[in-house]
């Protein structure tokens, strides 16, 4: 029932993307929002009489209600439920052009401000909420004044900033009201399921880790600001994560995992598909133990949809986040490439938080308002191969004075521009067979003994600064060597590495097999859910390096499971 209502809300969201999504129902306005609004108004009024008044104030309370259960080798190891609320205050003194939040230059990019987690009451008690808001606002106001003095001095003593845009954009207020959603699963069922899913691993003595964890979370956010925004949203996320690892004789740990993330429980896989995936994992792990090692190599490769999604997330996504075009210690790889070709003309890349599903899979990088209360909207970053835009929070950059609804953060952190749902679109795609044909042709043309195909990946990371090499690393779990005759062989022991501009210029073609990678992206504003939907792509030249590995031998004694000493009758 409930999920029916929610999906209708989502449908409306897609249809009306770019405008305020929900009508405010005054009678339904919760007491939390009311208390926040009252204290916000009082604070602006009282502090407005001070010599240095705040020009902007926002309160955000984020409630995370969750339940989780985990099992290893078929036996339950944890089961909890929790509820917590965190308060975030954005209080600004100075003005839109220059305020207390401007990062200091030449002092490293990291600021301690904003990581001070304030725990809020979990009860809708207006008096207690207001008491906390009052106390914390006062603290924030005093530190904001100190920050502004430091910022002003910094501006005086450092060279003129390259980016002339101010510190905060003027935006229209937004209103939105959504009732809190319930968690629609029974924890006891999932305690059973995670045990059932990991039981098949227990039959093997050479798997050293086999875990499944399930979590269901509702994140309810209340947001008010001095522009007049009043927003209450509620988002659910269900995750099932299965991981297992074994070890090769040379000590290399070989992990494998399967991750399912969904917006509603209905989108989670059924027991049969999970069992199938687990059986596949067992088979692949056993095969990986005997798989040959690959030496460092450069040459053509296919990245499956999942791998190419992470590839785009790391090398493009993080480099089009707005604040990175502004910070003087950032590499600013793409800043001067605006309106230039960066990908083949049949490739477009969008960031679309208003999309909730793609090809039958939920997209978890969806939201209706960002963490600054700006309505979510689709941003086309690369249009037919040409770089067109950046992802923006309310911190403007030259040429982009407004937010485009990508100011995101984890509760307790300070907002910066972050990714949402990354969508790679290829017009006139090849079929999977045609893409492989292109790979074989490239192998032949370059006279290589083989090419590579990356299937499953663990994740990746990238450095975007100026002081470390501006590079990326995508960590594959399952890689195949593809021989000129089309034969494929499972291999192990390599990571995919590269630098962004070179690698980007080698993207050659894409197919029609869209895959979705859902995950949590961590950066300076904490962990936020993101997705990447992408076809498999052919890259004419990639580079792989040896994977780091453990030097420890596999366990000396056999596992107690297959051991004939396991004589229960003795005791």
């Amino acid at each position, binding site marked *: 029932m409930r999920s029916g209502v929610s999906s209708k809300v989502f449908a409306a969201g897609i249809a009306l993307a770019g405008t305020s999504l929900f009508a405010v129902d005054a009678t339904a306005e919760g007491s939390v929002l009311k208390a926040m609004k009252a204290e916000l108004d009082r604070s602006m009024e009282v502090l407005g009489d001070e010599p240095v008044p705040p020009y902007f104030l926002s309160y955000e309370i984020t409630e995370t209600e969750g339940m989780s259960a985990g099992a290893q080798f078929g*036996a339950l190891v944890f089961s909890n439920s929790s509820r917590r609320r965190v308060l975030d205050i954005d209080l600004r003194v100075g003005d839109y052009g220059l305020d207390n939040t401007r990062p200091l230059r030449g002092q490293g990019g990291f600021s301690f401000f904003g990581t001070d987690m304030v725990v809020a009451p979990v009860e809708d008690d207006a008096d207690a909420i207001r008491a906390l808001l009052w106390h914390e606002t006062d603290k924030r106001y005093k530190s904001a004044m100190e920050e502004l003095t430091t910022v002003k001095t910094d501006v005086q003593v450092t060279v003129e900033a390259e980016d002339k845009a101010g510190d905060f954009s003027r935006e229209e207020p937004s209103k939105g009201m959504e009732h809190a959603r319930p968690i629609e699963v029974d924890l006891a069922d999932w305690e059973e399921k995670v045990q059932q899913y990991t039981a098949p691993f227990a039959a093997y003595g050479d798997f050293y880790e086999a875990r499944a964890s399930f979590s269901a979370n509702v994140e309810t956010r209340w947001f008010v600001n001095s522009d007049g925004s009043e927003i209450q949203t509620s988002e659910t996320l269900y995750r099932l994560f299965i991981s297992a690892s074994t070890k090769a004789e040379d000590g290399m740990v070989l992990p494998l995992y399967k991750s399912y993330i969904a917006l509603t429980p209905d989108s989670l896989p059924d027991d049969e598909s999970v069992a199938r995936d687990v059986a596949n994992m067992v088979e692949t792990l056993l095969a990986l133990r005997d798989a040959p090692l690959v030496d460092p190599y450069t040459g053509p490769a296919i990245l499956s949809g999942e791998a190419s999604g992470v590839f785009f997330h790391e090398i493009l996504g993080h480099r089009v986040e707005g604040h990175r075009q502004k910070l003087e210690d950032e590499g600013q790889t793409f800043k001067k490439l605006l309106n230039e070709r960066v990908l083949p003309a049949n490739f477009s890349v969008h960031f679309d938080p208003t999309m909730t599903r793609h090809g039958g899979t939920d997209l978890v990088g969806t939201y209706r308002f960002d963490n600054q209360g700006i309505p979510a909207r689709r941003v086309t970053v690369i249009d037919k191969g040409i770089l067109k835009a950046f992802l923006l929070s309310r911190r403007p950059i030259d040429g982009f004075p407004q937010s485009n609804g990508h100011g995101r953060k984890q509760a307790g952190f300070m907002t910066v521009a972050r990714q949402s749902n990354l969508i790679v679109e290829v017009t006139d795609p090849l079929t999977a067979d045609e893409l492989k044909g292109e790979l074989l042709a490239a192998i032949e043309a370059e006279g290589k003994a083989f090419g590579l195909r990356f299937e499953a990946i663990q994740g990746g990371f990238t450095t975007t600064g100026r002081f470390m090499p501006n590079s990326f690393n995508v960590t594959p779990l399952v890689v195949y060597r593809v021989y000129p005759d089309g034969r494929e062989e499972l291999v192990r022991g390599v990571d995919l590495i590269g630098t962004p501009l070179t690698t980007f210029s080698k993207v050659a073609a894409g197919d029609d097999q869209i895959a979705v990678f859902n995950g949590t992206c961590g950066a300076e504003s904490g962990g936020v859910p993101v997705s990447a939907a992408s076809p498999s792509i052919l890259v004419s030249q990639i580079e792989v390096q040896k994977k780091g590995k453990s030097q420890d031998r596999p366990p000396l004694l056999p596992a107690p499971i297959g051991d004939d000493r396991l004589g*229960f009758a003795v005791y």
Partner: protein
Amino acid sequence: MKNTIFLSNTFVAAVALALLVPATAAGEDVLMQAMREELARTMDELRMEGMDEPYFVAYTIRDNEQVSVGASFGALLPSSTSRTRWLGVELRVGDASFDNTNFRGMGFFGGGGSASLPLTDDVVEIRRQIWLATDDAYKNALKQIAAKRAALQNETRVEDLGDLSPQEPYEYAEEPGAELPRLDEVEGLVRDLSIRFRDMPHIMDSRVGAHAARGRTYYVNSEGSSFIRSDPTAFLSVTAQTQADDGAMLHDFRAVHAHGWDDIANRGDLAAEVEAMGAAISERRSASALEDRYIGPVLFEGQAAAELTAQVLLPRLSGVRTPETERRFSARRSGNPFLDKLGARVLPRFMYLADDATLTGNGFVGGYPVDDDGVPAQATSLVENGILKTLLTTRNPVRGIDGSTGNRRGGGPQPSNLVMTNKRGMTREELYDELKLLMEEREAEYGIVVRRLGNPGLMPASGFSFNIGFAGPGAGQSNVADALVAYRFYPDGREELLRTVEFAGIADSVFKEIVAASDSNTIYTRGGSWGFASGLVMMVGGGLGLSPSSGGTVTLSVPDLLFEEMSVRNPTGNLPHPPVAEHPFFEE
């Protein structure tokens, strides 16, 4: 091929398990059985050719169920309930005279393996985790002993103490403790106490927190010791803070420790205590500040005497030796200064100090029947006629001390119930006469009486701040928290409340300068920051990675203490401005 064999074996095992479940008793037996079976396998079979063999193995499983609740200004903060089962492996290679412990090298060596265990009583899966953690611990131990031998091959050991002191095997088992309280029951009490602050307009910020845990510890070692111990704990704390008109921050706290939640819930005086505390904090807003530095006699009464003992004397009572290090490390011996004071004076001649883990009841909650090494609890006389006789130890040998005193809690030794007695106990009247005498001798206008002392573990939530070390203690000095309730005491018996008093570096030797003590003791229990200290001890001791310490609660029984001379002052530093806006609840 291999797979099929495994599968068929598992099938057999599964059948055996199914048949035996009814015959096996409770889950406790499963845990002990799993540990014993893997212990036998480890001792009989775990070895690498040409390498040292395990000569001592101990397994610890801690099964912990807990409830944590908090409230602020009458509304609940996030609460949590959890159940965990944690395994710790202590594995030693070599022999008791020289093994892989008591060494710190450049490389990171996890002292032993650890793992989280299934919550279900699944003997095969519990054994699998023990097997993997033991394998890890063995490989680590081999690396450690090799690094230790390499570091020592060009050195002559000045001190050859051995690495594990002998101990008679000991077996112990006790029944499980009381059930945990229901979450709503704990929440009810916490909310009820917290809401009292709505009647206290001057209190800017307050917190009430409660924690109850029902722990069971299971232990076996390769010498034949084993125990099953209940470790119930319950804790309630209240902190509150206000600001005087000139900006001075004033706070206080109350904390109650007990073995079971009922002992806290059944106390009828909690609400009154909270109200009295709030009133006392508010009263301090208009109290006078020390205008200048004061040097002279100071009388510590009740909580203040016990808290002072806990902050200055208690950390020195644990016998932790400095481990051997690689030569690349400077050989700075930064151990406990009391290691060099065995046989020396640490208290005045008329005073005695003992640790006694066997004490229970009458407010003593720091005790236990058996320590984390499986050594039975005992009473240890630490100071006699003012002379330091011994320190508290685990089975890690310490120079000048014979064997374990049964004080292992977590990774290292910790006091349990600490009792300070004296042969010249004075009545309250006599004690104040003595204070007046000291004042007279110095022609002092007044003396200082301290009734409450801050506890660094129970400071008000102040957010993120750095402690910059300008005001750190000098060598041979301790940092002591500010006095929260202190009075000027005049020769005519008049008392004048002071706001907050700061101590200017208290010398380690200050306890030798006690002039007099009362004839009755205050019993005071303390936890909190202690757990952190035990983490440090664990690293230095190089013992096993017993991360969740068994609590580390210490009960002190201490008389009022009169000190000949201390230096106190008004807290240093500038005062923050009071809040710009009024408290929204108390506005108008």
